[in-house]
């Protein structure tokens, strides 16, 4: 988990400190195209003479913003729906879980692509789409927790004291269910970063911003001449996703020792 934390911190720091460590505007073209790494800029330049190092660093901002944003949205939706399903049970539970299952079966990437293709590009839209596409997992986790907690002592006590359903849900059960939720949210960031990279790779990214997936798409015709346009952004994606995954796994070990093995995979 420490490794994960380290990677994440590295990526986050680079993204936040972008203007300090990357001096060139990532979108600025120049006549010096295809410069290999270390000849002109740390990572070289791409086909339009843009500085690859700057692109990677600023691209990190996009990935982090989308990853964290989508994960937050996914968590929000998942907590609400999963909470209701787990608490209520019965028909409501059945219906909601059928819907969740449905969203889990539909290939997420395709659904996201279709939505973005028709709704339009832009970083805000991508966050919303990714949040919508990924909520079922969180919902299931929350639901499982709520079902378990439904008959626990805290809840009995709260009911005995005359507390309303929302109060119980929000104040009593949720804090106890947070462990798995945090883990899922962290892993959700990794997942969202991968999805966003795929969407950008397919040309549906935000055209005003540089993102890692977009860089990989750009690199496609020039693989033979300039490996650096592909290798660096790809490694960045790997590092971020790996980092958040490890972080999630580590948090899992810490927060849910009982549940180890069931939440993973």
């Amino acid at each position, binding site marked *: 988990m420490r490794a994960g934390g380290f990677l994440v911190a590295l990526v986050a720091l680079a993204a936040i400190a972008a203007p300090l460590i990357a001096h060139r505007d990532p979108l600025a073209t120049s006549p010096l195209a295809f410069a290999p790494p270390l000849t002109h800029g740390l990572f070289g330049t791409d086909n339009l003479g843009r500085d690859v190092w700057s692109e990677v660093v600023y691209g990190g901002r996009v990935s982090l913003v989308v990853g964290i944003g989508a994960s937050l949205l996914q968590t929000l939706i998942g907590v609400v729906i999963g909470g209701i399903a787990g608490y209520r049970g019965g028909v409501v539970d059945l219906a909601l879980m059928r*819907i969740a299952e449905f969203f889990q*079966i539909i290939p997420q990437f*395709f659904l996201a*692509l279709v939505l973005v293709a*028709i709704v339009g590009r832009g970083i805000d839209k991508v966050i919303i789409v990714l949040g919508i596409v990924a909520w079922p997992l969180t919902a299931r986790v929350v639901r499982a927790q709520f079902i378990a907690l439904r008959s626990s002592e805290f809840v009995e006590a709260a009911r005995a004291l005359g507390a309303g359903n929302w109060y119980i849900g929000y104040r009593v059960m949720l804090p106890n269910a947070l462990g798995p939720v945090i883990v899922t949210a962290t892993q959700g960031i990794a997942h969202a970063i991968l999805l966003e990279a795929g969407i950008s*790779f397919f*040309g*549906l990214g935000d055209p005003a911003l540089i993102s890692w997936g977009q860089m990989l798409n750009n690199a496609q015709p020039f693989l033979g001449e300039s*490996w650096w346009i592909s290798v660096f952004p790809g490694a960045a*994606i790997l590092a971020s996703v790996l980092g958040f995954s490890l972080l999630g796994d580590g948090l899992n070990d810490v927060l849910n020792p009982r549940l180890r093995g069931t939440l993973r995979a």
Partner: protein
Amino acid sequence: MGSSLARIALVVPQLFGVVAIVFVITHLLPGDPVTALVGDYPAPPDYVAQLRHDLGLDQSLWVQFFDYTGRLLHGDLGFSFAYDAPVVSVIGERIGPTFLLAGSAFVLGTFGGVILGTLAAVRHLRATDRLVTVLALVGFSIPGFWLSQLLILAFAVQFAWLPSIGMHALHTEPTALGAIADVARHLVLPVLALSTGHLALMTRLVRTSMIETLQFDFVRTARAKGLSTQLVIFKHALRNALIPVIAAGGYSVGLLLSTSALVETVFSWPGMGRLLYDSLFKRDYPVLIGIFIVTSLVAIFANLAADMLQARVDPRSRA
């Protein structure tokens, strides 16, 4: 069995759901649903008028919905003006290569995962285990399309050992065996790239499951009973591990199809994924929506198959 029928019956609302999503997408958007269904191409005005009439846009949404569903049931996924052919035939031509690729990756990933996961479980906490765990994690986190580019850089650019474009060489092979070998050569790199994620997932699952089972039974009973029982326990553990594998397998199909879209694009593999990329680029919405429907259907049925298989393997798993 009644439960099998029940499972099959559950698929119906899911199919319904897919159509509903497509319907909602095309109708709740700003603009004309006919435009979304026709795409960006200058379609002849009488086709557009016909479509408008067929969709009955002046009638209630429910009527429209049933009309649309009716068309789908007749296999009418619309017409693609970019390819000048019905969407069904455009997609139909591409399904074969995608299934070849995704299918090979699925088989490779599943079997490989079982083997590697077992290996890691047996050597739990030793060097092999750690190595496998790390590799699995990396394999799970690496974007498939980047891995594809890396493979091309290594094996096609740096060392021209393997082809990196398409499914066939340009000339037609004289013999059937030659043709098969040709496709096989082209299949190597894409399958490697595509199967990695699935392999990683399966490895993790099998490893986790086997570790749990092996820890208890193996340690306790093996010492008491002797070697042959070890084998039985082992088989039992493996059987247990299959449960999550099957469950994840159904889910994996969807994941594989998604990733194959990306991998196919990098390798110019003539499948549905490449078609998806091209139709997105050309703003050919009918094909885009058609691919979405087809892959969703495949995923739904894969899940159904996994469910039913699971019921047979482990009767107690009835969520």
